[in-house]
């Protein structure tokens, strides 16, 4: 199992098409990572910065391991010295030799080590914060309390809106253009790279470069009020062809339901006023306050990563959203009859 983990995490580092930056340090970084992963059995997780699946995350994870090992050694030396001074030393050292510790340990060694660390840190910094190359995919993201609006360029040249799930082609840079609709949020997909705040009145950006196909999780990193803990999204990294197909499909309007139950659900949807806040493209529902639901059925989770997208969870969400996401704007529809609710769920789950 450990070997598997080693292979998996080294794969992207070793096989990735090289860019021209600092290949001389790549090999040593890879060696660090190898060492790290062999000692690390608890690094995995859909949201882990230590099981990287993107260029930025890989570099930062390697940097972390290098720093952690260095810091560990420094700590042992200092604490060893302290223990020696406190317990073991039988005779007082003379003042002059003690003072050498101050100059050596307090000034010379830290200055050297910090200079080296600074050089390494600054060397990888520009690549992490620069814009994506010309022609890359741009996804516009708007943070809203407490969910995510994703705006993709559509294949025909315009743009269209999705919510709470982002899909990306593997092996290509993507630039997220970040804005906020209300308070400050933080856009963060730990497995792919660092985070950037979304600040009202400003536009910030984050460039990520996914390197491995898979499903990951992003979260809001900046405290944004009551349900900050419930503001997440799914990230699906897929091969380019699959991504293109997905994008074409998502750009299309919703398909009218064919099943009678779902068709009835679409009427419940409109009659209950859901369209006042939510849009389902191709129908009369064109609200823009809440998340777009055109392809809701194709998403992994609901309520911005709060629950798995299942009929039972959807029922809970529709009837008592505040119990799942405190202070959520959506009103609870507990007055809907069971039949209406079932139809509504069938309709929404069918919106693929």
């Amino acid at each position: 199992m450990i070997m598997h983990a080693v292979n998996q995490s080294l794969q992207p580092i070793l096989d990735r098409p090289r860019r021209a930056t600092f290949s001389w340090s790549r090999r040593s970084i890879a060696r660090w990572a190898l060492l790290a992963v062999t000692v690390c059995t608890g690094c995995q997780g859909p949201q882990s910065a230590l099981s990287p699946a993107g260029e930025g995350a890989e570099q930062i994870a390697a940097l972390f391991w290098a720093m952690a090992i260095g810091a560990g050694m420094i700590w042992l030396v200092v604490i060893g010295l302290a223990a020696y001074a406190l317990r073991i030393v039988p005779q007082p050292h003379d003042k002059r030799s003690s003072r050498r510790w101050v100059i050596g340990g307090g000034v010379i060694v830290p200055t050297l080590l910090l200079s080296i660390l600074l050089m390494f840190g600054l060397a990888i910094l520009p690549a992490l914060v620069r814009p994506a190359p010309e022609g890359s995919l741009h996804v516009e993201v708007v943070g809203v309390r407490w969910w995510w609006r994703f705006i993709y360029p559509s294949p025909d040249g315009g743009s269209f809106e999705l919510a709470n799930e982002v899909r990306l082609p593997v092996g290509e840079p993507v630039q997220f253009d970040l804005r906020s609709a209300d308070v400050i949020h933080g856009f963060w997909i730990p497995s792919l790279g660092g985070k950037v705040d979304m600040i009202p009145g400003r536009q910030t950006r984050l460039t990520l470069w996914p390197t491995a196909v898979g499903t990951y999780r992003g979260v809001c990193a900046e405290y944004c009020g009551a349900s900050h803990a419930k503001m997440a999204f799914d990230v699906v990294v897929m091969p380019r062809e699959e991504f293109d197909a997905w994008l074409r499909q998502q750009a299309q309007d919703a398909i009218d339901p064919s099943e009678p139950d779902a068709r009835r659900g679409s009427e419940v949807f409109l009659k209950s006023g859901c369209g006042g806040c939510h849009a389902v493209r191709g129908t009369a529902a064109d609200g823009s306050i809440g998340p777009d639901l055109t392809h809701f059925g194709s998403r992994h989770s609901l309520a911005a990563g709060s629950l798995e997208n299942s009929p039972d969870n959807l029922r809970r969400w529709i009837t008592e959203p505040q119990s799942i996401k405190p202070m959520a704007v959506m009103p609870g529809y507990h007055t809907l009859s069971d039949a209406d609710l079932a139809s509504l769920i069938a309709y929404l789950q069918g919106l693929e």
Partner: protein
Amino acid sequence: MNRPADNDAPEGAPKNVQEQRLLETWRTPRGWRYWSAVNNTEVGLWYTVTSGCFFLFAGVLALLMRVQLATPGAEFLSADRYNQIFTMHGSVMMFLFAVPIFEAISILLLPQMMGARDLPFPRLSAYGYYSFLIGGVFVCGSLLFDAAPKGGWFMYPPMTTDYQPGIGADIWLLGLSFIEIASIAAAVELIVGVLKCRPPGMRINLIPLYGWYILVVAGMILFAFPPLIAGDILLEMERAFDWPFFDPSRGGDPLLWQHLFWIFGHPEVYIVFLPSVALMAMIVPTFARTPIVGYGWVVLAAVGTGFLSFGLWVHHMFTTGLPAVTLGVFSAASQAVAIPTGIQLFCFLATLLAGRVVGSVPLLFIFASLATFVFGGLTGVMVAVAPFDLQAHDTYFVVGHLHYVLVGGTIFPLIGGTYYYYPLVTAKQLSARLGKIAFWLLLVGFNITFLPMHWTGLLGMPRRVYTYPAGMGFETLNLISTVGAFVLASGFLVVLWDIVRPKGKEPYAPRNPWDAGTLEWLAEMPLKPWGIRSVPIIKSRDPLWDQKDLVHDIDEGRFYLPDAEEGLRETLVTSVIDARPEQCLRVPGPTFLPMISAAFTGGVFIFGTYHWWTPALLSGAGAVATILIWLWTGTARVPEKEAKNVGLGLELPIYISGPSSVGWWAMFITMLGDATAFISLVFGYFFYWTIHDDFPPETSAGPGVVWPVVGGVLMLLAYGMTIAAWRLNRADRSGAFYFTLATAALLTVGGAAALFAAPWSTGLDPTRHSYDAIVWLLVGWTVLHAMVGVLMQLYCLARRSAGHMTARHDADITNVTLYWHFLALTVALTVGVIAGFPLLS
């Protein structure tokens, strides 16, 4: 004139008439009048106990959070409640514990370390204490009414403006501003204490290291808190009156708050940490049985840390999308601060190496602190590397890091310090057995709690979440942290029990129980209220080790001020650099005035929170009135004689004014802080200019040129006449003095009115755009200061006519003139910015 000591007297009884008089003079009032005490030993003790209580309160909040986070999706606390609790945990720990405990301990110990009888402004300490108590109870109490702030201790707008109705955020802004003012008051007192109240001979290179740290930390408070107060003013103005400082739709910007907050917030970390290093610097040499190695290094490193800490604030904003160059510069600066910190720690290690170490409970905690703080410092260097911070920022990694720094750097030395200094407060010793038990519980509990958090954060758990989903790998780590938190809490309970358990039957601690070398250990057991029997001449950094017969001579009253012939409390004032005696300062005794004026001042902030403007204004008037009474009755009294023999044939003046007096220094230092707040507001003006292409905006008329210039000229004239009045008073030309100062007051009122007319006449609407709002705010700030200036001018007129101010006794007008130097700068800068800058841009 000294009689030989009477060796048969019972323990603690006065040995002669001199001692009897000293005891009478310094006796602590009894019964309900006890609360009128202003002496540093009482106020310092109340301060310490109160901030300790706030620590326990915030600790309980932490336990509640850990219970909620023990399992995924728990419903022990609601989201809203959790958010209030984590906000309060951080705010209380920082503002009601970490900073106040340093000031508390310093108020308690500094005079003893300096061989002084008291701090120079005992009533100011008491005022600060009561402000702290009232403000702290108000802020903490809000949690019981479900009305507590919930914007995080960092209070980022716009979440804390448009998105949080209710009074929670106002309680934070006003309640804590009130406490910040008290903190600044204490800082002023401590700076003057170190600079001016040292014993004769204690030149600047002989000050105990604790004194140096107080200077550095109090200086940092002086420059770090004002930017936050400026930010608080902006944020509260937006909340209460809709002035759009942080609203991007009207020209504001949320990042302005972050800059102001972190210009405060990062030095704050060192404000909290350095005092504990100071405790280490006192404890380590004692148990190494040798003077500190590298005294000069430690002092320079402490000063260096203080300076550098003001250049790091942007590392709290690495993820706000700043340019790579900015990230690089602040990343470098943030790493650089590790160097002076390392120097200080290595000096302590070198001292231990050079000495013959004696084991003790305080030293155990120093070791715990080293192990923990060095770890936190290393993770600190890691997050200072900007690329890593892009991942670690706002995650549990940072929660782990900051607790290693703060608990390791601050709490452990504090506990060590408690074990060390406890005899100086109660004359009893704490139990070494309980101390060892506490040491293990705390060290183990702490690491079980916070070590896993680094991992939790790297697995992707953000901070400030009230819950987390299962399946992310967070469950086990969080459960371990919760278990550890309770072990940690049990360690604190052991310490608490050791402190409060009855010790009536235990014998008094021996005098100087640790064989330390510094002056505070002169204290007799049981303790005497006078601080020190006579004020010695100091020739060494460790006088108790190096100066032969010092204790005996002090006890025999062979040094300065061995007596209180007039029954007045007296202490020595010495010169700043080489501690030459300059004045016999009479310090005030017990009074309720500080308590009353603190209550009135609190009223302004508390009523203001609820927008009850009339009671707030009445309270403000009450505060001004009581402070005036306090000044009138107790400050710069004309003494019954000019000079006094303080012993050893030395005659010292009782009344002095100008730069050798403590009052002048207090005014100067206060005004430095005040000017810093003003500069922070001006920074706001230019910050808007840097982020807008069009600033001042074309659409705004601005305040014009004529009125600001008229206002400025009138006030500068008033400034000139105030200086003239000071000269006239000194020349004893009474009539000319009254005429000039009265005219100056009139001119000030006229100037303030003209300045006010500037934005008024051009119809600037502070709710329209951030430009209008910041101009109004600069004008408002200046006008308010002008009004205080008028009050001071009138006060001087009254003082002279009542005979409390004469040509010789001119401290009042001298200090008022000093205030006016700063006011003139403020006026000039305000006029230059609001009227001059639009002409340039």
